[in-house]
């Protein structure tokens, strides 16, 4: 983490939350035209895609995760692009790794072990992921255990009931406790936007999460029926901008779930660059929560280097 000025959180400002305005059709229009307004081609496209690789939280969150499965994922995390391809891009000396590896709390130890010697942080989901419907003491305990096991980032899920009933105070208090439990580990707050009713609620929940001290705000668990969309991402990035404007803290953003293609990744990159600025294209402020995206990017890079598309089995699996 290169973020020097970490968000400590600020007192809850309910007036700010209640005064939020998000116009759905205006959001939809911006999102529809943005990918048509911005594109990168050739060298620029390849460089952007490689940058996207460094922003991936390589993720496995499944019931059948085993130590062996996690080891394999970590090996891919350390070497996400085939070395021969990197050298053809003239990046022999550069250390290209993904942003983090994201697992369940029970698998943190395996991941930490597998990543020893690299700078790649282990991220753990916590607080009753994905639904968040577990008693509070257990949720806090989960964070503490994950931190103890060596997770440097904790992806916490919010209790959606507080958003849907408008109980912002309760949401804020709970997240403050999460943040305390995280200690030095960075807190990435999952809003589970697919469960929230309106874009305005997404915006309001983003503000509350940041005021409670989140280092990142994240769209989804990947387990809702609708996960990361450009619409909610636009709303959340605008909330980040507003928070920066008021308090001077830079909050990271992580879209997660459903981003499987290089083209989608570039749309998100354009969104970050246009709405927040170049710094939000770097891994300390921007992550993709994805499992299949990496392979597609690798295939696009292969095409950039050779002019041909490779089958998936030409790329080492993670």
């Amino acid at each position, binding site marked *: 983490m290169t973020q020097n000025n970490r968000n400590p959180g600020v007192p809850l400002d309910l007036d700010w939350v209640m005064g939020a305005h*998000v*116009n759905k059709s*205006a959001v939809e229009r911006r999102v529809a*035209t943005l990918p048509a*307004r911005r594109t990168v081609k050739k060298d*620029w496209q390849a*460089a952007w895609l490689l940058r996207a690789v460094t922003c991936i939280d390589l993720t496995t969150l499944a019931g059948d995760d085993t130590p062996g499965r996690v080891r394999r994922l970590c090996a891919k995390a350390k070497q996400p692009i085939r070395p021969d391809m990197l050298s053809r891009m003239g*990046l022999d000396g*550069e250390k290209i790794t993904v942003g983090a590896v994201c697992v369940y709390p029970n698998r943190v130890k395996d991941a930490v072990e597998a990543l020893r010697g690299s700078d790649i942080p282990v991220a753990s989901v916590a607080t009753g992921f994905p639904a968040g419907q577990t008693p509070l003491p257990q949720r806090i305990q989960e964070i503490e255990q994950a931190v103890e096991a060596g997770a440097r980032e904790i992806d916490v899920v919010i209790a959606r009931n507080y958003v849907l009933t408008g109980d912002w105070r309760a949401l804020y208090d709970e997240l403050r406790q999460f943040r305390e439990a995280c200690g030095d580990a960075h807190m990435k707050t999952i809003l589970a936007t697919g469960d929230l009713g309106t874009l305005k609620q997404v915006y309001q929940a983003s503000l509350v999460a940041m005021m409670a001290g989140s280092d990142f705000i994240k769209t989804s668990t990947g387990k809702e029926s609708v996960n990361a969309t450009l619409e909610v991402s636009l709303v959340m990035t605008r909330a980040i901008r507003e928070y920066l404007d008021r308090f001077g803290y830079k909050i990271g953003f992580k879209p997660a779930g459903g981003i499987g293609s290089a083209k989608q990744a570039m749309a998100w990159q354009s969104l970050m660059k246009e709405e927040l600025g170049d710094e939000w294209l770097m891994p300390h402020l921007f992550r993709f929560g994805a499992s299949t995206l990496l392979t597609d990017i690798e295939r696009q890079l292969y095409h950039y280097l050779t002019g041909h598309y490779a089958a998936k089995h030409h790329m080492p699996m993670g």
Partner: protein
Amino acid sequence: MTTFLEIFKTMEYGPAPEAPDAVKAWLDEHGRKFGLFINNEWVTPKGAKYYPSYDPSNGELLAETAQAEKKDVDAAIAAARTAFESWSQTPGVVRARYLYAIARNIQKHHRLLAVLESMDNGKPIRESRDIDVPLLARHFYYYAGWAQLMETELRDYQPVGVVGQIIPWNFPLLMLAWKIAPAIAMGNTVVLKPASYTRLSALLFAEIVAEAGLPAGVVNVITGSSSAGSMIVTHPDVDKIAFTGSTDVGRTLRHQTAGSGKKLSLELGGKSPFVVFEDADLDGAIEGVVDAIWFNQGQVCCAGSRLIVQENVADKFIRKLKARMEHMRVGDPLDKAIDMGAIVDKTQWETIDSWVKTGIAEGGECYQPNIRLPEKGLFYKPTLITGLDPAAATVQEEIFGPVLVSLTFRTPEEAIALANNTRYGLAASVWSDNINLALDVASKIKAGSVWVNCTNLFDGASGFGGYRESGFGREGGREGLFEYIRPKWMDRPRPDLTSMDLDAATNEPVKPLTWGEHVPARPAAPTVGRANGHDLPRVGPHPEDVHRRQTGPPRRALHHDHHRRGRNDRRAGWRRQPQGHPRRGGSGARGARCQARLGDASRLQPFADSVFHRRKSRCAQRRVHRANR
């Protein structure tokens, strides 16, 4: 050359050009020299002068086009007149097939049209590709439907005749679609003159029309200077003029067509308000501003060029807007990742620049983002001028460039007053998340189009046009049809200009008036059978009625018969009504006489016409609703 590693670290945008190859090949095929398109053929006028067309983004010569002269204009109008004889008699369903074919052919040549449009005009390829050309096709699809419906929905109307259309340079293809599609759908034939800055895309369109198989002479395209435009406007065999352009030229055209019996529609300038209330989604409204004033480099007649923000959020809004402007990209129109291309011509660039200087001289604070412009080419930075008041000329006059002026207001009433404090009335945009407020304000702003929480959205089914000095007549939608039809009972008025003291050749007053010379009228001595410059209606029974009473069926029976027919079949009766004069009714012979009389009173006619349209259109709308159910 930027290295891969540098891009990886800086994450800059790179070039993303659209290839101009196909356009260049098309221009080369024509030897970079174009004649006039008359009767579906390229006509090279003898001894014609040629005029160059440049790419405004790099100054390169694209091609030369012929300057039409009087004989060429006459030839084009004659071709259109000949084609009108058969085209106007062609069943609507057949005309519809031609319009559908044109629409499909436009889609077939989508990319070629878009690239040529961007090269010719300087607009970003994103706009020509995603907005101009799709709307061009959309208008033809939409009006193809109306061609098919004309005989049922507009059965008491007839085409106007030969239509002269003069279009501007800011949306060469879109303006052409707005004009040609409804005209030919209703059975008219067209002589189109594209603007002198942008002629090439209209010529490509002419080829596409011919490819679609449209009969020769239905659409003719002639290029030339403004004097060629004048020749079309004053030509006696043109029945209607449709014009989009500046208010000054519009005024001239009104003058030139006055008393000639020609129909006229004008779509002129604007200084449209963009009203932002405190309860708006400000980030959304910022994107709205970008769409409003930096769309097409601000060269849009309905550009939202007056930002009117509620005072308590004004500072925040302007701060956000300036931050957003830093993200604008200005450059090569063929680059897919730019927001603004080049200004169409050097004269326009200079006008814009002089307005910005005027704004500063008037006390405004000028803000331009710190972004790179290409070294060569007619580029202008997006510009915001704050701190001006309505008294400043920069706030009142149309700049027609990427320049936004901002004002503040305190109450909704004041917002409405400021929005309406203009001699124009083309469009407006209102931003608020409160639907009551937004709709109330929208209904009180005098503008042809008012967008709520969005801006600059167009569609074939939606009418567009102005209030006040923004012109009259509508384009698009059902309402757009009435510019190209007239009731079957009505002929083109051919007023007797001598009775109005007008010179028949120029339509100008025989005795020119100067300021202060006008003397209020006093009662004049009566002349028999005439008053107010017109023949008086006959008093007492008409000789024909006297004759009928003596020889034909009794008058009462006639009336009774008519009445009963109307009762039994209300729809049929309603449709039959206008075959005579709607208020006078009666037999065909009497209808014809009414026409003759109305023919003299040319000034009365457009008025009666419009009242009649409104009444009919409501009934017809109800019918369409019923059919949809």
